[in-house]
């Protein structure tokens, strides 16, 4: 990481300041909440699912710009995808979306959205590959 100029590149700031898909869904088919106790980030993701495909997705919660931007980008990315496709998402997919290098501490912020989404889709707290 060569500095906050890179970490806070325009697209991340744009997503953090004006998050897409921010809010909650009524009668969600899947809802899951998780937190990053280290920094106090909290994230909830709601899904409407039909025929195994994500019809609508929203996130809510509080957090730093990295966790908020990652949630915003991820929600945009997975709308319309099947749950099977979501299960195949990896941390590298999220890091690629963010387009930045993250140190071990901020990595948790960047991956909170994926962790929450996958746990919701799998319906469990630990999803396969979590330790990777």
């Amino acid at each position, binding site marked *: 990481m060569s*500095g*906050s100029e890179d970490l806070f590149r325009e697209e991340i700031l744009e997503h953090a300041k004006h998050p897409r898909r921010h809010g909650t869904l009524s009668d969600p088919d899947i809802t899951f909440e998780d937190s990053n106790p*280290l*920094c106090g980030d909290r994230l909830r993701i709601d899904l409407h699912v039909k025929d195994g495909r994500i019809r609508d997705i929203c996130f809510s919660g509080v957090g*730093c*710009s*990295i966790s908020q931007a990652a949630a915003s980008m991820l929600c945009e990315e997975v709308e319309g995808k099947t749950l099977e496709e979501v299960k195949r998402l990896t941390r590298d997919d999220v890091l690629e979306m963010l387009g930045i290098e993250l140190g071990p501490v901020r990595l948790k*912020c960047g991956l909170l959205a994926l962790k929450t989404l996958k746990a919701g889709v799998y319906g469990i707290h630990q999803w396969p590959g979590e330790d990777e």
Partner: protein
Amino acid sequence: MTRASGVSVAIPEVRPAAPRAPFDPEVVRRQFPIFRAARPKPLHYLDSAATSQKPDAVLAAMDRYYSTCNANIHRGIYGIAEEATAAYEDARRRVARFVNAASPRELIFTRNSTEAINLVAYAWGRSQIKAGDAIVLTEMEHHSNLVPWQILAQERGVELRFIPVTGGGELDLAALPGLLADGRVKLVGVVHISNVLGTVNPVAEIARQAHAAQALLLLDASQSVPHCPVDVQALGCDFMAFTGHKLLGPTGIGALWARRALLEAMPPFLGGGEMIREVKLAGSQWNELPWKFEAGTMAIAEAVGFGAAIDYLESLGMEHVFAHDKALAAATMERLREVPDLTILGPPAAKRGGVVAFTLGTIHPHDVATVLDDEGVAVRAGHHCAMPLHEKLGVPASARASFHCYTVPAEIDALVRGLHRARKVFAS
């Protein structure tokens, strides 16, 4: 101590250097290798409440120990084992004297403050606390002086009560008589200086009220012993926990001080080697103080480093260190007033040590810390292991600048510069 071998090997020498006067943080700073290290941008280390940096004297003492007399203590009959034992016990004497313990036997080495408090919760708590008893803590405790008591409370059916924190970040002492009134309180546990707010709590008054209600007082001195003169006898506490790594010493070594009669009456905490006098298959007799509570091989080099750190601080003078901390806190609070949207948590400068926590508008503290890092400014962001306090103050997290003897005013300038930049980066 006599040495068995005739070979002349230097006993680790960590005696105080000649007193320096007047106190000059710029001179002090040059005695810390981390600030001399070449790096792309200068390091402005404002996270001493998390851990302090280490002066040459501490590193040299530990290096000397490993290089000249590394051996296990209390056992070896040979020369270097006796030297190692002498160095370890000498460190204990210095630490004990530093907090004005009545005897070095009252000073138990632990891994850190957390382990010291757990020692009390397990050895004293589980032998003395029963269902229906109560323990009084405060809303500003670090998790280390909260969670061990929660575990005991769940196990024993003990009630936890809390001295409230006011909006201004001080303890609401008016509530204490009511908390103590029913006579069920066996222990009052309180932090001396808050690691978030910097608040210096009125320990002597709390101890007086606790004792009048037949309760004991446990002091979490993690942020006070490294920064100001602390006298366990004058404060009137019964247990006190503190740690080496915040006191310019190494990680992995801390201490529990307790009144001797309490320690004598307590069962051991951890069982194993060294803490026993005589072992038979059917049972064992415990060793005398302080070794009854020091099972297994201890962190010997770290204890030597702890002792050297105390020598170093004594050479600076704790009054000078504390005055420096307080002056920096006051200057920082004054400078932060020029940053729009910034809110300082906690009491006025006159009532605090060298800690200033704040929030910056709606910018998440992690984001603030990341921009500051870019300016070479290291601050802590998060809840600082005090989640209930942040909940009480109504903020999910905060950023915190904290100081020690090597902090210089130019670092406050860098902090303020970085905060202005953070506002620019996150302007909506």
